[in-house]
């Protein structure tokens, strides 16, 4: 699971502005959480959430954990996560936190190292996603006529379509 933050213009309304303001990075965002398969395709996505919401909460709201649990129960697949999802302890999630690499157990170290390697390749996919659509790195206009949703959907669908076609 990886979070994607897209910068957004500041709203004139203080209450709306507060919803999109991320205190950690001191900026206004629209957040999304994407899940990647090893071949770079996107099986689960939850997009267009206000920037004040944490990635882990977005995954919760978007039923991403439930979907991953369903896959784990049906096919035994697990998912590697980073420190943003560190407080979630479920058997279908593998934490790739740096702290685990320094544990005493060789087995735990080995797993943590492999999990970090897998998670790193997800970062590359996210980077490829941003590189193939540079517009995503631009600051989006603040509009409330559905423009934001259309823009995000265009980008996500185009990427998925492209991946699906090439794959």
């Amino acid at each position, binding site marked *: 699971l*990886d979070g994607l933050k897209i910068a957004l213009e500041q709203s004139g309304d203080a209450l709306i502005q507060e919803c999109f303001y991320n205190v950690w990075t001191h900026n206004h965002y629209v957040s999304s959480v994407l899940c990647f398969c090893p071949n770079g395709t996107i099986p689960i996505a939850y997009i267009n959430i206000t920037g004040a919401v944490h990635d882990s909460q977005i995954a919760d709201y978007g039923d991403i954990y439930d979907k991953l649990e369903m896959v784990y129960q049906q*096919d035994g697949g697990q*998912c*590697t996560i980073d420190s943003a999802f560190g407080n979630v302890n479920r058997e279908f999630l593998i934490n790739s936190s740096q702290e685990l690499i320094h544990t005493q157990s060789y*087995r735990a170290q080995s797993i943590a190292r*492999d999990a970090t390697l897998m998670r790193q390749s997800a970062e590359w996919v996210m980077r490829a996603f941003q590189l*193939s*659509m540079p517009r995503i790195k631009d600051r989006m206009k603040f509009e409330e006529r559905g423009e934001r949703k259309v823009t995000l*959907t265009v980008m996500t669908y185009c990427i998925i379509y492209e991946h699906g076609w090439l794959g």
Partner: protein
Amino acid sequence: MMSTRAAETRYHKDFLKSLDMVGQWLRSRKIPRSCLQNQSESDDQGLITLTGFDCASFASLCEIFVPIFDSYTPFIPSGKSCFKRKKQKNKGMKQKIHPEDCLGLVLAWTRTRGSLLALQLIFGMTFSNLDDYLLFAKRIIVKVLRKDQRAHVRIPRSEKIEEYKEMVRNRHHSSLMSDALWMD
């Protein structure tokens, strides 16, 4: 300490070196002269640089885009949906651009940043006209891709999941990672 920009360049070079000749040629981010001088000639390199799609995938996207483009018009009163009313034959304002241009416009828009000035130069349109068609194309593309199976966000089938698990097993030999399927 290496700067981010330098690290990106290094990784990009490593990535390009790992590709074959055709892969490198397609991702060189250049528009060849043949593409500019003879626009009827299909050229993957130029089209990928401008839109991110090769000729085959652009044509497949165009197939589902054209019927909607021909059925509706971007010239509607402000605040109304462009899909509210179907276009009547031989009535109303004539479309100034072809559907291929309109699709190319929206895909090129995703590949650029900042103002629409560069797109105005590429497509030879005034700002207001280009903005209307861009909004129209964005709405069409969302409409058509929502219904297209190839663009659906869905959990893969069990066979595909087994394939992914095998990929992970081959790469990571740690015993507990044997079932790891997805990545952060």
